């Protein structure tokens, strides 16, 4: 059985060990609440960045509205868990699904556009979602949504992060994922090979939105409180910066990008005046010296592209 070859056993042990170590450290209090908060924020950013990387880095569709999907997920989860009192799992799944549906609805008309036009359209979509949230009293309007039960913990966050990495990696190694990458490489040639480009762009958009919705759900159920401004244009830019910083078209890059940028901004908290300046300098530096991002489009071995076609087949 190829599922249980040597390499993958180490991989699974590694994934579980990583979880267990942090779980022990957090529950025994070695790592305090402040560190837990930051770890969870990093994971949420990883999930967001992976979704946006699928859309922008792998499929080549420039989107500036990723925070809007997070917002839809966050509000869905808030309604499901706080207003309807349903379990968190339902909240997470429904968040992903509503965000994905929003991705499909917005993707079908806008994904005919290319480049800057698409960017403007998705930016507009982000504003629409924000303004809708501001004006619906049921979800608190401008005051925000209060008293969301705090269900998000390390277990949920880590589980969802691993799920995002595994599913997106699997997807990218499938023929559907290759079709998405082919669209980025050459849309006309991809079409000539029989790739229905509209379908695959919308599919990538929906999967990216699904994970943004999940990230929103984790966010909402961690901070008790959400408001429309938490998911504004700047949040979309933050996610985009992580993706570009880590490397467009690299799963490992998105993960490292989220961690490095969060840690930098944490370390600079003591010099809050200088924080944005140093942050900007780091971005300048990376764009000057590694314009393709930290990882370029490379992967670590465990995320290796094409492992499905090469690795697992050889292991037959």
């Amino acid at each position, binding site marked *: 059985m190829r599922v249980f070859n040597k390499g993958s056993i180490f991989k699974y042990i590694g994934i579980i060990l990583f979880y267990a170590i942090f779980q022990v450290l957090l529950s025994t209090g070695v790592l305090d609440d402040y560190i837990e908060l930051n770890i969870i924020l990093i994971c949420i950013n990883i999930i967001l960045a992976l979704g946006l990387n699928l859309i922008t880095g792998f499929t080549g569709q420039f989107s500036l509205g990723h925070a809007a999907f997070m917002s839809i997920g966050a509000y869905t989860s808030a309604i499901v868990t706080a207003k309807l009192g349903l379990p968190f799992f339902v909240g997470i799944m429904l968040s992903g699904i509503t965000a994905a549906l929003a991705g499909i609805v917005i993707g079908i008309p806008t994904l005919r556009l290319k480049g800057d036009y698409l960017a403007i359209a998705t930016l507009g979509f982000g504003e629409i979602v924000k303004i809708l949230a501001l004006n619906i009293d049921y979800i608190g309007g401008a005051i925000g949504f209060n008293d969301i039960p705090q269900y998000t913990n390390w277990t949920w966050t880590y589980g969802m992060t691993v799920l995002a990495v595994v*599913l997106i990696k699997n997807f990218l190694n*499938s*023929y559907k994922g290759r079709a998405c*990458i082919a669209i980025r490489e*050459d849309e*006309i*040639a*991809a079409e000539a090979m029989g790739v229905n480009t509209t379908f695959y762009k919308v599919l990538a958009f929906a999967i990216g939105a699904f994970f943004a919705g999940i990230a929103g759900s984790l966010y909402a159920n961690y901070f008790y409180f959400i408001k429309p401004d938490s998911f504004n244009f700047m949040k979309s830019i933050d996610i985009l910066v992580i993706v570009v910083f880590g490397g467009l078209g690299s799963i490992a890059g998105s993960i490292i990008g989220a961690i490095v940028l969060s840690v930098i901004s944490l370390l600079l908290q003591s010099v809050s005046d200088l924080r944005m300046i140093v942050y900007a300098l780091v971005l300048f530096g990376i764009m000057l010296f590694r314009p393709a991002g930290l990882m370029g489009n490379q992967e670590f071995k465990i995320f290796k592209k094409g492992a499905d*076609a090469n690795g697992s087949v050889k292991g037959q």
Partner: protein
Amino acid sequence: MAVLKVNNLSKSFGGIEALKDINLEIHENEIIGLIGQNGAGKTTFFNLLTGIYAPTSGEIEYNLGKRITSRDLKPHKTAGYGISRTFQNIRLFQNMTVMENVLLGYHTGFKYGLASSLFKLPSRHKDEYEHYERSLNLLKEFKLLDKKDVLARNLSYGEQRRLEIARALAANPKVLLLDEPAAGMNPNETKELTSLIRWIRETFDLTIILIEHDMSLVMKVCERIFVFDSGRLIAEGTPDEISRNQRVIKAYLGEEA
């Protein structure tokens, strides 16, 4: 039997008539050459044949097991019907490996669904394995096997041309359209290409339509030639007939012959 019939086909862009009243018929297993000066409408004709453009008027009709008309032709559907093409300026997926490029050629052959793509269900493995094996064979036939893990952009020019043809053949076409396959090749490479094209026709049992400026290639490999001039079809016939046709000589040399 006619595999492709074109009736009164015209295409205009605004006021410019790129193609005017084209009528032709192409039979199964033929190797057809389209020649004509730059701007004569050859590539426009290819783009009409592959659904990239819709005709302004007239009709395209393929007979590929079932009847395909110009209304059915959408760019992403042509591969599924059995119509494959290469491009004038090589259009490979530059940052994908040679293997991945060929696997993309098999795109319409994959059957497993979204759930398998996300969760690696068993159906996916079998499907991927079969196409991987087929790609290996195809790459071997095109002498690209040792390059299978190389990014397409790192191939030499001749190899890129070969890979593009291999990728087009992966879709198992009945009609193969080659847009200037010899462009940029040296005489030796062109000679190899000549035998490659014949070999493809025999091995894959298909109809080949090619646009080419290199007359040595066209005259050697094509069985029939269509000559385009300013959007019109001005002559058709065997290489021998074409090389003696007064209208063709006039259009090519631009003087009273």
